C-alpha cells in the first residue's frame, strides 16, 4: 500500500504497488467502519495479499490479508518518516499495467531492513535504495566517467549535473548553464560504493556529516530532475529530523534545484 485516501461515506481508495501489474488503484468498500474485515489489513506500508474484483469502474478489494505489517516502522517516528519516503519513491517511479517485480522486491526488502536498523545507518540505507531504484529504472547517475566527454575522471574534486545525469569533468563544466553541485572526490567514492555494494556490504560504511549531506543533496537533485517533481515526503522527513531531533540534521541548503550552485565550482 503506497497511497490511500477516503472515498464516499466509509470507503477507501487505495494505490497499491504490485509485482505483476505495477501500480493498481482499487476501492475497499466500508473499510473505514470499525467492524470492517478489510480495514485493519489495508494501511499505508502494509505488505498485503489481496483479492480484487474487476468491474466496469474501479476494481474492488474483496479480501485482504496482512503478510507484513512492519510494526517496527509504525512505532518509531524516524523510521516511519523514512518508510513513507521509500514507498513514495517506489510509487513515483512505477506505472500502471507494467510488471514491477524488481522495485516491488526492493521496497519490501528495504522496509524489512529499515524496521530493525539503528538510526545512524538509516540514511545510508535511503541513499543505497535511491541508487538501486534509479538503476532499476535506467536512471542511474554516471559516476565513472565524465557524463559529457566520457573521459576517465581523475581522482580529484569535480562537479555534478543532474540535467546531464552525472559527474562532469573540469573541461566540460562550463559547457552548459545547468545548475552544478560540488562533488568532492570522497562524495564520488561514496556514491560509487553505494551504487555497487549489496546492503550487507554497505551497512558498515562510515560517512562524515558533511559528506553525508552532500551525497543526499546530489541524489535529491538527481531524483528531482528525473521525476520532474518533488518527492513530497522529504518535507516530513526533514521536519522530523530538524524539529524533533530524530537522528542527524537534514541536508544543508535549499531544496534541490533551488539551492544548486550555477557555474564552475572551485
Amino acid at each position, binding site marked *: 500500500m503506497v497511497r490511500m485516501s477516503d472515498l464516499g461515506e466509509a470507503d477507501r481508495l487505495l494505490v497499491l504497488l504490485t509485482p505483476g501489474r505495477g501500480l493498481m488503484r482499487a476501492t475497499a468498500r466500508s473499510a473505514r467502519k470499525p467492524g470492517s474485515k478489510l480495514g485493519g489489513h489495508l494501511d499505508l*506500508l502494509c505488505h498485503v495479499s489481496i483479492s480484487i474484483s474487476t468491474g466496469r469502474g474501479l476494481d474492488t478489494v474483496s479480501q485482504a490479508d496482512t503478510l507484513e505489517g512492519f510494526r517496527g516502522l509504525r512505532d518509531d517516528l524516524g523510521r*516511519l*518518516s523514512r518508510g513513507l519516503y521509500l514507498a513514495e519513491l517506489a510509487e513515483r517511479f512505477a506505472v500502471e499495467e507494467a510488471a514491477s517485480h524488481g522495485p516491488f522486491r526492493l521496497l519490501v526488502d528495504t522496509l524489512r531492513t529499515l524496521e530493525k536498523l539503528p538510526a545512524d545507518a538509516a540514511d545510508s540505507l535511503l541513499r543505497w535504495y535511491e541508487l538501486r531504484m534509479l538503476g532499476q529504472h535506467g536512471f542511474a547517475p554516471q559516476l565513472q566517467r565524465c557524463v559529457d566527454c566520457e573521459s576517465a575522471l581523475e581522482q580529484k574534486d569535480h562537479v555534478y549535473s543532474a540535467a546531464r545525469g552525472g559527474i562532469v569533468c573540469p573541461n566540460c563544466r562550463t559547457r552548459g548553464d545547468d545548475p552544478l553541485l560540488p562533488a568532492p572526490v570522497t562524495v564520488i567514492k561514496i556514491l560509487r560504493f553505494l551504487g555497487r555494494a549489496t546492503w550487507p556490504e554497505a551497512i558498515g560504511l562510515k560517512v562524515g556529516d558533511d559528506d553525508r549531506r552532500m551525497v543526499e543533496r546530489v541524489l535529491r537533485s538527481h531524483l528531482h530532475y528525473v521525476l520532474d517533481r518533488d518527492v513530497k515526503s522529504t518535507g516530513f522527513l526533514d521536519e522530523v529530523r530538524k524539529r524533533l531531533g530524530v537522528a542527524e540534521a537534514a541536508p544543508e541548503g535549499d531544496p534541490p534545484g533551488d539551492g544548486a550552485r550555477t557555474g564552475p565550482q572551485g
Partner: protein
Amino acid sequence: MDGHRAASLAPPVARLIEAFRKLPGVGPKSAQRLAYHLIRMPRAEAESLAEAILAVKDRIVLCQVCQNITESTPCPICSDQSRDRTRICVVEEPLDSMAIERTRSYDGLYHVLHGVISPVNGIGADDLKVRELLERLRDESVTEVILATNPNLEGEATAMYLQRLLKPLGIAVSRLARGLSSGADLEYADESTLAHALQGRTRSADQDASQSL
C-alpha cells in the same frame, strides 16, 4: 464531464452537475442524479437548501479556542464551565469530537487539528492547527492531552509527532486504546489490531473482585 454531454445539457443544469461533482465522494453519475432530483424538487425545498448552504458559509466560524466549527466563539463546549478544563482531547476533524460526545464518557475539552499529517500528500504539521494547540497549552491549566487521532498510519504519525512536541511541556499525554471492536471476529482481525488488543488486555472483573475481597 465530456464536451458532447455538456453541449446537450442546459447550461444551468450542467453548472449544477459540475458543482455537485466537486463534493467529496460524488462521482459523475451521482452528480447527475442529485441535479435532476433538485430539478424535480418543490421550489420551497430548493430555496431552503440554498439558504442552509449560505447560512453555513455566512454564520459558521472556527472556535478561537478549540478550532471546532461553531456559530459563536468560544463554542458551547469551550464556554461550558462545568466541563473538566484540565483535559484536552485532540481530534482530526470536527465530526470526531461529535463521535466522542455521543459516548457521554468524556467531559473535557477538545482541540480540532483539521486534518492529519500526510507526508505522501505533502501535508505537514504547519498545515494543521498544531501551533494553536501549543499556544493553548501554554496558557491553560491543562494536565492531560488525549490524542484521539485515527488508528491508521497517518493518524499514528500525527500522534507520535505531537507526543514529541508536547514532551518538553511536561503534560501527561495519552492515546486512545486500540484493539478489537465490538462484534469483531478474531479470525478476520489483522496482526496489528490483535497485537494491540493483547498489549492492552485487562483483568476480568471477577478476578479483580476476588482479589479485592
